[in-house]
């Protein structure tokens, strides 16, 4: 069995960045689930707890990096899948632009909320 399916062109930059963000996400996503479902049960999360966590510089930075990495990985994954399915030319540029824009918006909003949670704004 040597067949191997991937949507990515293995020589590309998108491929490499997808792998690098994946490695980072393994740790952060597992940590996130563990912290907010098992250490703190999801049903018992209160603003005070969120604020306490987000007020720590380390946790805050980790969440922002997690946000950036997950957004990039997700949006890049979607874009790549569409290119892999044959998206080309103007439509490719438009879709790429829309996806990049949504990603930037999501990150900007995520960072705003993170500051609000930390009580900074």
């Amino acid at each position, binding site marked *: *069995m*040597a*067949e191997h399916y991937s949507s990515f062109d293995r020589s590309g930059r998108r491929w490499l960045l997808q792998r690098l963000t994946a490695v980072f996400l393994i740790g952060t996503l597992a940590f996130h689930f563990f912290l907010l*479902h098992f250490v703190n049960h*999801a049903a018992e999360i*209160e603003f005070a707890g969120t604020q306490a966590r987000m007020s720590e510089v380390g946790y805050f930075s980790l969440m922002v990096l997690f946000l950036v990495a997950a*957004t990039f990985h997700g949006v890049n994954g979607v874009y790549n899948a569409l290119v892999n399915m044959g998206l080309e030319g103007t439509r490719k540029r438009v879709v790429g632009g829309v996806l990049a824009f*949504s990603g930037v918006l*999501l990150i900007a909003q995520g960072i705003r909320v993170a500051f609000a*949670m930390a009580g900074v704004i």
Partner: protein
Amino acid sequence: MSETYNRGTVEDVGRWTEFSAGMWAWIFHKFTGWVLVGYLFTHIAVLSTATASDPTVYNQTLSGLESLLVVRILEVGLLAVAVFHILNGIRLLLVDLGIGLQAQDKSFYASLILTGAIAVASVPTFLAGAF
């Protein structure tokens, strides 16, 4: 190493009965990836509307959501989706590094079984207090 194949026919969903394990892995990985991005956008939107100057809004939004049985069940689903994407993703990273090329089928089945086991094991924690 990758083999070249005719995408036009191999990826034709109508031929799903002929799919190999690798093909299923590819489809599941796509599906779980898309669910995760969708969740991420929703997640930030929910956290954004919940985070107001009055902390009771946040508490009420989250506890309101968590009191719904559907939400709890969807969360178990989300965990399963995330766990599969992580485990299969690690498998893909290793395959790309040339590790375990001979055991791709086995490692895919292992990812599936482990995902199932973790999802089942998490049910008590996830559903606690939902009834």
